[in-house]
């Protein structure tokens, strides 16, 4: 992974606490993500990993704490604002638009870059048509990159799981994000599919310099891909560091092997 210049922190979450009713999902979690790096979040089930991503892009609003992205500190992040700042993500349970084709799904990823209004679009002349074609060209690049040309016009609901995961990645990529949140991109995949997905993630990071935050259960994948790892357990951060440091951390071993608390 040479050639990448890992820079200053682009994302800083500080002292995040989030609870639903009486259930504490996150407690005083802080960590940072540096520009261009691949940062993994790991932890047992229910550790609060997905909740953490949901805080970063504004789906959940924490009771305490702040999120700083590109120097802008916010307590209350709004999903639309996060998206327009360049945060994109995929979901643990695929969140594609099932009734739409692969092409349309990925096109939605470019919605923030479209400028024409609905009247121009209804007339389908001039600017609206040119814009649609320009973005179509961009989306075709994403489709080529992910090698899904053959299913362009297929409704995503009819695709097998592995391909759906890839389309979801494509939708997020189409937005040309600066920060890419991936929630278990390889869950439920076979070895071959996992290898493909790993390659795509590394390529995205390498070619476009996209900063990536990744939740993953497969330890092998995490160790291979990530620059630094955050470990959560019961909503608390229990370790933070380079993969091999984290692997030998006693608290992490206890959390995974289930030592009584």
């Amino acid at each position, binding site marked *: 992974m040479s050639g990448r210049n890992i820079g200053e922190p682009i994302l800083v979450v500080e002292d995040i606490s989030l609870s*639903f009713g009486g259930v504490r999902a996150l407690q005083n979690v802080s960590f940072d993500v540096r520009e261009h790096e691949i940062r993994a979040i790991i932890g047992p089930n229910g550790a609060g990993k*997905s909740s953490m991503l*949901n805080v970063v892009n504004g*789906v959940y609003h924490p009771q305490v704490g702040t999120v700083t992205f590109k120097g802008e500190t916010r307590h209350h992040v709004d999903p639309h604002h996060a998206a327009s700042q360049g945060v994109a993500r995929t*979901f643990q349970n695929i*969140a594609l638009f099932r009734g739409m084709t692969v092409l349309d799904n990925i096109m939605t990823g470019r919605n923030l870059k479209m400028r024409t209004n609905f009247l121009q679009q209804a007339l389908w002349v001039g600017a609206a048509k040119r814009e649609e074609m320009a973005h179509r060209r961009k989306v075709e690049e994403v489709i080529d990159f992910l090698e899904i040309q053959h299913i362009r016009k297929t409704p995503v609901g009819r695709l097998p799981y592995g391909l759906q995961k890839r389309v979801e990645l494509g939708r997020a990529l189409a937005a040309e994000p600066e920060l890419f949140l991936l929630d278990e991109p390889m869950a439920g995949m076979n070895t071959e599919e996992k290898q493909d997905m790993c390659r795509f993630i590394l390529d995205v990071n390498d070619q476009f310099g996209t900063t990536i935050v990744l939740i993953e259960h497969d330890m092998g994948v995490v160790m291979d891909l990530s620059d630094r790892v955050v470990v959560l357990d019961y909503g608390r951060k229990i370790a933070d560091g380079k993969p091999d440091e984290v692997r030998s951390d006693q608290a992490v071993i206890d959390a995974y092997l289930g030592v009584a608390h």
Partner: protein
Amino acid sequence: MNWQFFLEVLAGGLLAGVMYALVALGFVLIYKASGVFNFAQGAMVFFAALTFVSLVERGMNFWIALLATLAVMIGLGIAIERAVLRPLVNQPPITLFMATIGLTFVLEGLSQLIWGSQPHGLELGIPDEPMQWLSESANINISQFDLFAALVAGILVAVLALFFQKTRIGRALRAVADDHQAALAVGIPLRQIWAIVWAVAGFVALVAGLMWGARNGVQYALTFIALKALPVLILGGFESVAGAIVGGLIIGASEKLAEVYLGPFVGGGLESWFPYVLALLFLLVRPEGLFGEKHIDRV
């Protein structure tokens, strides 16, 4: 302001609200057990009332007719489960909702095809007249029939509560209402339960049909009372029996008060939309209803 008149209007409204609650109850039962918003509940009320009154008019004894109608409603419940719900299992709730709109049309057409379209009178032996002692002592006019309906509603709720708390089927129903998957996992036969719930809802529809039929006559317009029950549900929450009752009372009272005190300023006829707008404003404040549960969207 004339407080006696106010009380009279209020009481009339509350009692009318009981009648709405009777219909709303049927919605709540089905929604709780199967997650289906049964738009056809009003049509079921009509179907039940029309069947009953037609049987009585053909010379059948009151009680035998009641039992026969109950049997028909149970059969209908089972048939609906078979023909409509089972093929649509696991579809989004909105699809099931639209299917019950279709069901509404089928039931309306079917009942009139079988029994004819002419209106019928229905006599339960309770006069719809103000109670004398109350009129004389406090100068407040409250209909005997309204009180009777309230009593019936009270008994119905009590019977349903007993059924849900004390019987095996009732407990299974509550389990299903809490969590379909978990109920299936512990071996509760979901389909049977749904058929039973629809049958019980048919029974509630029969009671509501008798009350409304006795008050307004058994005619096509009965199907519209379902539309009155909808704002009640929004107000009370779709899954709460208590909500149906309280919501009914609030809608009944506020609609009558609005008609009497606001109506003259805007030309009357508020009853057609006031409950809806009230429920709508309420929704903006508390989308889950008075007694509904708050849901967290998980991602």
